[in-house]
């Protein structure tokens, strides 16, 4: 296994900055997800690790070796990495075993050893009996497994995965997620995983790098990312957080918390800030509860929409107030539902105050 590091890496295509000033450390054996909407630069970052692109600025290292810098690039074939492509990219003219064994053949691994390793890899992904098949004879899920076995066969220091589950059905996706988890524990290789699906990233990764417009917004463990986003954009992207401007009014009784003023109602939120500062507070629908209109300590709101979602219903609300605020809030409700147009109270159980440089609100 190997570590990967980016030091102030930038890359532009035809004047468009696909990646700008990215610094990121991936530890040995770590499972890191690059998460972001399409066009955010995550795939470019991955392809720079592989060596298909090279940076215009900054440096990329695998382990201690410099592999990419402006005008300098170690070719992909000499980087000792594995990659699982979104389309799997299995070689159609080779058998499954041929696909898996190709890298070993190139490394001049003797034939008996190669056969043993191929069998072992296929066993590892649960396809021990399919070595003689051709890729087109396999199902999508099986192809995915072959692509994994192929990428891992030569024991790469780093395994790159480019949206590997994008082409699979929902139920297969879950099964493969568990598979990735198990494989990561078993093979002890560094995994770098590109996805636009946050639940995938949350479920799999040790750490997630959230990207937006070529910039890494935040790198953190999934729980931290959810509970303590450092910027409004991350808060909105992860778990559809709502960001509302507030003014810090007083220290709170609990340590690490402050009192803020939200639509005229005092509220205790996590985070620190000097008294009088104006910041964004991150609210999540699952921490908001719809109660009776006159309940104390709640925010008076009017229900504008109801969206049925099975176990729970998403209630859209507009705070009532002199400010004539246009911020929409969402709350999760179950059981008795309010009606559209009804005046209700909104109880807020948790909130997170964004740090000072937590970008625009």
């Amino acid at each position, binding site marked *: 296994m190997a570590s990967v590091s980016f030091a102030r890496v930038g890359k532009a295509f035809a004047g468009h900055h696909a990646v700008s000033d990215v610094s990121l450390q991936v530890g040995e054996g770590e499972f890191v997800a690059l998460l972001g909407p399409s066009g955010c630069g995550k795939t470019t970052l991955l392809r720079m690790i592989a060596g298909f692109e090279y940076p215009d600025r900054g440096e990329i290292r695998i382990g201690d070796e410099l592999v990419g810098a402006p005008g300098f690039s170690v070719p992909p074939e000499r980087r000792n990495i594995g990659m699982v*492509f979104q389309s799997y990219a299995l070689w159609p003219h080779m058998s499954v075993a041929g696909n898996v064994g190709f890298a070993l053949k190139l490394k001049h691994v003797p034939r008996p050893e190669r056969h043993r390793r191929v069998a072992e890899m296929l066993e590892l992904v649960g396809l021990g009996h399919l070595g003689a098949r051709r890729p087109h004879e396999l199902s999508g899920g099986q192809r995915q497994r072959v692509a994994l076995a192929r990428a891992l066969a030569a024991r790469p220091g780093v395994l790159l995965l480019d949206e590997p589950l994008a082409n699979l059905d929902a139920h297969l996706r879950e099964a493969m997620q568990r598979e990735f988890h198990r494989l990561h524990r078993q093979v002890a290789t560094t995994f770098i995983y590109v996805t636009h699906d946050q639940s995938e990233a949350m479920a799999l990764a040790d750490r997630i790098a959230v990207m937006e417009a070529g910039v890494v917004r935040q790198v953190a463990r999934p729980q931290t990312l959810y509970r303590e986003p450092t910027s409004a954009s991350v808060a909105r992207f992860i778990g559809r957080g709502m960001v509302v401007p507030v003014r810090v009014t007083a220290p709170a009784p609990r340590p690490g918390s402050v009192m803020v003023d939200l639509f005229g109602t005092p509220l205790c939120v996590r985070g620190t800030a000097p008294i009088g500062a104006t910041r964004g507070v991150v609210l999540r629908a699952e921490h908001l509860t719809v109660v009776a209109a006159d309940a104390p300590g709640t925010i008076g709101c009017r229900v504008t929409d109801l969206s049925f979602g099975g176990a729970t219903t998403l209630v859209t609300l507009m705070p009532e107030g002199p400010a004539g605020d246009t911020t929409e809030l969402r709350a999760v409700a179950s059981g008795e539902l309010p009606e559209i147009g009804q005046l209700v109270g909104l109880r807020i159980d948790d909130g997170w105050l964004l740090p000072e440089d937590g970008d625009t609100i």
Partner: protein
Amino acid sequence: MADTSLSAVPALPGRRRGLQVDGEKILLAVLLVYVGLFALTPLALLFAKAFGRGETGEFLGMIREQWQSVAVQRALWNTLKAGALSTLISLVIGTAMALLVGITDIRARSPLVFVLLLPMLIPSQITALAWIEMTGPQSPILLLLGAAPDPGTKNPIYSMAGISAVMGVEHATLVFLTVRAGLRRVPRDLVEASRLAGAGPLRSTVSVVLPLAGPAVLAGAALAFVSSIGNFGVPALLAIPARYPMITTLIYQRLSGFGPDALGSVAALALILSVLAAAGLTVRAFAARRTRMVVEATSAILPRFQLGRWRLPVEAATWVLLVLIAILPLVALVTSSLAPALGVPLNGRTLTLDNYRFALFAEQATRRAFANSLFLAFATAVASGLASVGLAYLAVIRRSRLARIIDLIADAPYVIPGTVLATGVILTFLRPLPFLHASIYGTIWILLAAYFGRFLTLALRPTMAGLEVMEKAVDEAAQVAGAGPMRRLFSIILPMATPAAAAGALLIFMSALNELTVSALLWSTGHETLGVMVFSLQHEGNSPAASALAVAAVLVTIALAGLLALFGRRLPQGIVPWQA
């Protein structure tokens, strides 16, 4: 980036010293020599010669002398006249057939298309020969109808109208294919909208379909025009006996009469021909861009209009026309090949295979021609197939800019008239080759050199198309697995590109086997080709033997086409030209 041609990823020196990268450079160098020697140099030398000083040393003398020559002006005028008339014929037949097949409910569509595409399988000189047999005083078909010209009178096909008719029919296929492709791009909704607006089938066709397919019709016509002014097979068999000089036959006659001494004047003639072709190709490129502009590809094909009670009459008329222009000439060719001698009526007792015996076994020159053509066709097919894979790999997968340029140049020797290329090839290879200290002029190798240049693009197009649609990740996956550029070429790209390259190679084999235009200027005794042999036998007056040889050549070609059709089923669309 200093070295974009080899790799998108430049690296520090020292890092890329290794066998793989060197292999890639060698491959690029080989391809550069290949296209430079067989395509670029002949054309460059031709233009240099044509723009050179004349005998009196006058600036641009060569071209001025030719331009002012009465013989040349007459040939040019004849070429333009026959070209225009034949284009008109192609345009009418090709467009009508494309409309019938494309947007009506006419039956038996597949045999119809097959007959329409026959000219792609049958070389010009054989088509011309077949028409001679069909319209002459000996015509078995006209004799049967009692409509044959009196013996001893001139065959009416030996005329401007005859030349234009044969070329027009032959090139109708090009218009048909272009218009059919254009019709496929017309979105179905537009036609349906016009129907809902109250237009009947005929009105919709005239007001919506034809205007939208207009650029395709224009492109097809331009292609037919370029093909007819560059055609040599038909004029060789019809215009020479008709004493109707055209540019291609004038070039041929000057070169075969005066040899290399005529090269200067011939180069100037070739230049005139190239300018005409370039004009036609410009129109075609312009029209092709317009077709692409009309609409983005749609999934639904055009609705087929019902011919109703007109269906049977239309079908009957179509088949009568097709039998007349495509089937009967071939029947005449076959019957003439079975007749014992010129002028002997053919019946159960006189029918003989002697002509085949003579043409295929007895006559040494034809046996040699068969062997030569098979060798040339095979060598060209294999070399072009391999060069295509290498070039397509560098251009498409490795994104080498130089390879892209080579790819563009490779088209030129095929789109220019064959006589032009042949003239350039003589200019290139007349001089003794370096190292060898001998000229290949007058040997079979000059034919091979010309074929290498002429046909490369036929394998290159399908191979490039195949690699363009291939997913790039397949190559990247091999790269990650540790395979260098050359290793990937052999282990990944070659196996995957083989079907397309092989289909192209087979197409080359078929075309090269019957090649006449280039060969006619380059052959020498002992180094004849099949196309040349058919032409010579006919010139010597042995038309039964010429017919027999032609029939044999057509049978071989059709067998190869069958092979290609089998192959084609497993290929992406658009690689085998006659596949629906």
